[in-house]
């Protein structure tokens, strides 16, 4: 009898905690189109797999009337569960409890689950929905953030870390997501900024809405802080599950191998790329024509669109794709696209994911704004990340590969394992027009018909250098291939390099051009 009573007591205590900030607060949360913390966790995890810890944790702050405030679970839910059978650690801030504000015990719960994730070498998912620091807890609150940032950094490159912004995430709080690998945002729900519209108005006299300052769209299109955009929490949760399916559990194992599905036969790889190197096409069509099941999972789709990055599978194994996008800005390398590609290459390298590069670019974007924004430093990141990556690196030159862009995009010289070129490839120091104008400047300017002479010289140069065979004659390209051979050769190349072993010189860490 006594046992039954105690079990009933536990059940009652649990029920109370599960209500978080209470019916009224939950009502407000729902009115904003938001799920509660526990609903979000359950939506991401496999049915029945969630185990919650620290449900009865409470703060012991005394100042400013906090001694009379009872905050269920201290405003954050932590636990473990599985996603498609793979174990993950997860936390979700509960906005219904004191606005999800972060106090000492709240942060200790988060760091507890982070420590578990690192120790058990399983991915960490953090759902952010918080008004910020719990001001009443003063410096303890700041200490809490610092402890979280430290763990984000130490876990970086060891376990996948995913941040989901489902509410406000302001001030110092934004630095935890910024330190993680992938940030998910939802339109009209996510808000991220260091200083909010009110402070900006007071100090600078500039007026801006929260959405325009740090909404989902802004971080996906403009700042590049977020990686995945969705219009509802449900869409966001399915994106998270899909992403996790591509990732290994940690940096010492490989991603799960699934059954090989051939690409959709409706993609005709010979019909995608126009022969004229100045005409655009969507490079994602080439990826889809090659990747298993034509299933390409793009990352940062709305940011620096002149560079395409994302995951897919070849022969059932996860690979990362990096490709110039001729459809946008002719596929040039610039400040933002360099950042985007370089970080992704480092991600793939950290988690043993082979890198497949599709090259078609005219070079770097000219411009005062680019030079002043540091295109030298940012462009260098691409060279750095390709060079230091020791995972299998397979490169296919589709069309243009001019100048510094050729070197940067996973070339042989940065130790690509296999470099293939389509017969449409033009591997040269620059485009025919530019090269002819420089080499034959005298002949052109002194001719009676300069335009005619220029045309002749451009054709001459094209004939001689705008092809893959000069590079192939030096062994910089391993094989000139038909487009239809691409998938088979990539599959074979991956098979051959599956045991790739590279010894790098000892270093504590390099100094990439951040």
């Amino acid at each position, binding site marked *: 009898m006594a046992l039954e009573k105690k079990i009933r007591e536990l059940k009652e205590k649990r029920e109370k905690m599960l209500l978080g900030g209470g019916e009224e607060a939950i009502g407000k949360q729902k009115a904003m189109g938001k799920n509660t913390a526990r609903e979000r966790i359950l939506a991401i995890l496999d049915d029945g797999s969630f185990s919650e810890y620290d449900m009865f944790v409470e703060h012991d702050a005394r100042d400013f009337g906090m001694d009379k405030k009872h905050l269920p679970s201290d405003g954050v839910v932590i636990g473990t569960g599985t996603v498609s059978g793979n174990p993950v650690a997860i936390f979700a801030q509960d906005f219904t409890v004191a606005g999800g504000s972060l106090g000492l015990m709240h942060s200790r719960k988060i760091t507890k689950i982070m420590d578990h994730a690192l120790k058990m070498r399983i991915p960490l998912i953090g759902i952010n929905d918080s008004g910020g620091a719990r001001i009443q807890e003063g410096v303890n609150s700041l200490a809490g953030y610092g402890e979280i940032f430290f763990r984000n950094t130490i876990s970086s490159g060891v376990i996948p870390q995913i941040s989901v912004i489902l509410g406000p995430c302001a001030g110092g709080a934004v630095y935890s997501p910024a330190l993680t690998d992938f940030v998910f945002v939802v339109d009209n729900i996510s808000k991220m900024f260091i200083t909010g519209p009110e402070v900006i108005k007071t100090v600078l006299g500039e007026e801006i809405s929260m959405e325009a300052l740090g909404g989902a769209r802004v971080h996906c299109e403009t700042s590049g802080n977020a990686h995945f955009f969705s219009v509802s929490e449900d869409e966001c949760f399915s994106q998270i599950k899909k992403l996790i399916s591509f990732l290994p559990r940690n940096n010492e194992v490989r991603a799960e191998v699934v059954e090989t599905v051939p690409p959709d036969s409706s993609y005709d790889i010979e019909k995608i790329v126009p022969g004229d190197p100045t005409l655009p096409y*969507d490079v994602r069509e080439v990826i889809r024509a090659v990747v298993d099941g034509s299933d390409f999972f793009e990352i940062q789709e709305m940011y620096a669109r002149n560079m395409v990055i994302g995951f897919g599978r070849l022969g059932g194994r996860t690979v990362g794709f990096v490709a110039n996008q001729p459809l946008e800005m002719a596929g040039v390398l610039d400040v933002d696209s360099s950042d985007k590609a370089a970080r992704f290459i480092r991600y793939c390298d950290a988690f043993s994911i082979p890198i497949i590069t599709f090259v078609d670019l005219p070079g770097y974007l000219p411009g005062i704004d680019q030079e002043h924004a540091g295109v030298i430093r940012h462009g260098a990141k691409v060279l750095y990340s390709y060079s230091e990556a020791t995972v299998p690196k397979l490169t296919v030159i589709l069309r243009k590969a001019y100048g510094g862009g050729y070197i940067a995009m996973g070339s042989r010289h940065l130790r690509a394992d296999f470099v293939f070129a389509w017969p449409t490839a033009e591997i040269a120091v620059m485009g025919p027009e530019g090269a002819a104008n420089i080499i034959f400047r005298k002949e052109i300017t002194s001719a009676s018909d300069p335009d005619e002479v220029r045309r002749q010289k451009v054709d001459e140069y094209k004939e001689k250098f705008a092809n893959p065979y000069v590079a192939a004659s030096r062994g910089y390209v391993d094989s000139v291939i038909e487009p239809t051979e691409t998938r088979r050769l990539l599959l074979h190349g991956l098979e051959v390099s599956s045991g790739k072993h590279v010894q790098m010189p000892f270093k504590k860490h390099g100094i990439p051009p951040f």
Partner: protein
Amino acid sequence: MTRNDMEKRANDRINIDHTWYTTRISARHAARKPYAPADPGLISSFIPGTVVEVMVSVGDTVQEGDDILILDAMKMKNRLKSHIAGRVTAVNVKPGDRVTKGAVLAVVEC
């Protein structure tokens, strides 16, 4: 957006190394500010703020490094100085004025 829609929209042109490419110009590239070299005679606000004090009047002669005005911004009182020696030809603000970033507050001519 379907593939055809995207390619239809790709009808901008950009010149890279003497070659014109047909593509789509990004919003960011289209919106970039044209470069303008700095004019050393302009005394501009490098930050939004409030003018606290103006030390010169039109017609005054100033030396390089002379104080022109004090701009209160981010809890700091910033002394804006003349970059050149010359004559003050315009003072566009008075104490108490709030100014945006980049506003021309005064002009000095050689």
